[in-house]
């Protein structure tokens, strides 16, 4: 199994969710995150004091998939997340040893 992690622009969430559902993914986890890459931050002004805000809001999407589906699923996520502007984010995959469905105790790919 693979864990696909995507850190992307918050307003792309619905697109990505729909694309993943169309692909056949049954579940995912979304976390609100903040960070920066090449995009860097922006400047805010409070009573004349200017602050550089480095960390911009992002969402982090995590999906567990079987090994064979991983590459294709990454493409699906990237396609749905892309706006072509700086700050679109990153997608990566990591190997996963096992997974358990808490309710039934099923293990491995059956738990997905």
């Amino acid at each position: 199994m693979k864990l696909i992690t995507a850190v992307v622009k918050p307003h792309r969430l619905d697109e990505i969710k729909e694309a993943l559902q169309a692909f056949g993914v049954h579940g995912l986890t979304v976390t609100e995150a903040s960070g920066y890459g090449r995009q860097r931050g922006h400047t805010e002004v409070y009573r004349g004091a200017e602050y550089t805000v480095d960390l911009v809001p992002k969402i982090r999407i995590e999906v567990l998939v079987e090994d064979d589906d991983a590459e294709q699923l990454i493409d699906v996520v990237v396609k749905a997340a892309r706006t072509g502007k700086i700050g679109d984010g990153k997608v990566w995959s990591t190997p996963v040893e096992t997974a358990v469905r808490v309710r039934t105790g099923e293990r491995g790919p059956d738990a997905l």
Partner: protein
Amino acid sequence: MAPAITLAADAPTLSAANTGFMLICSALVMLMTPGLAFFYGGMVRVKSALNMLMMSFISLGIVTVLWVLYGFSMAFGTDSGSIVGWNSDWVGLGDIGLTELWDGYTIPVFVFLVFQLMFAVLTPALISGALADRVKFTAWALFVALWATVVYFPVAHWVWGAGGWAFELGVIDFAGGTAVHINAGAAALGVILVIGKRIGFKKDPMRPHSLPLVMLGAGLLWFGWFGFNAGSWLGNDDGVGALMFVNTQVATGAAVLGWLAYEKIRHGAFTTLGAASGAVSGLVAITPAGGAVSPLGAIAVGAVAGVLCAMAVGLKYRFGYDDSLDVVGVHLVGGILGSLLVGFFATGKGQSDVAGLFYGGGLDQFWKQCAGVFGVLAYSLVVSAVLALLLDRTVGMRVSEDDEVAGIDQAEHAETAYDFSGAGGGAVRTADAAPVAPAESKKVDA
């Protein structure tokens, strides 16, 4: 404060209309203290929001009690030496008749004293904005009690009490430009020079945690200020209170525009915080002046206040004093401005026939205004610094560095302002889980 209204040799009689109006005004002024708490509370970081709210709120407790015990007597009792008043009948407010009228007016003493009480509550609370994030709550509570006693009560007497030196000199301070705003602003400066900066001042970003809360506070202040200003005439028999009401609205609107215009040109954006701050700067500046100027004069006073205060809030970075929420930049500067501009814009057709420079009155009134401004400023600055120094040497003014960095809310109040965590609280019995034993003290992971 209004001169005595005497109707053709008749002694004033109790007016139900004025009494009702003044009770409503008193409630409006009371609302300014919680309004101020929100205005300040939204401006600090999330870890000290509750402390900021409490610094204002505690004044409603402390000063209210002191006012009953001896504050009203000190501020408005029989003058001694033009410095302070005293009237032993008013100690504890026990010997005041229900229909006994405030001398020369149409409202009972009880109405006058509760209206003035709300001013006494608000003024120490104004200081708290300069001391954000770092002052021990006990030390602050003691400061409020001592400051009210040795600064506010006497200064209110100087400005509004019969026999007070500024009152007798003819300083125009309709609703508290000197006694409230300059007084609080100068005190803030005195205290911060003693206690020093917040950890991370000029290095860490210190963004307001909730601008909607700041806007809510500014709105409540604006609303309450109609009572503060229009009510200060203590009645409505000659329309001066209504002029003050109009000028309060007009100057504040102009100040919002002044601050925003300056900010757009200088920093490139119309900020929410700028609009809220502009409103407060206009309210401060029109407070001493609104009974003496025309509505066009009020536009000038407000616009100048909006621009100058927007410039003044930057001074703390240049000179390195940590006036955290700009009490000096807004209240001291705005108060001085409004008080001095009376010397130029007084029309002679409002609260008195004294005209300022632009209305053919020369500079006489301007010099009187200067005396009032700098007398109050110097006294409050010095005495407040001494009080802070005394408290710092005894109970200590500041919380520990660890507590300040971790957040004063938890250290001083054992609370957290917001709980956004969705975790925990699952009381549903599950198949294997044992029933949860009731705990003596509940643990919250946040």
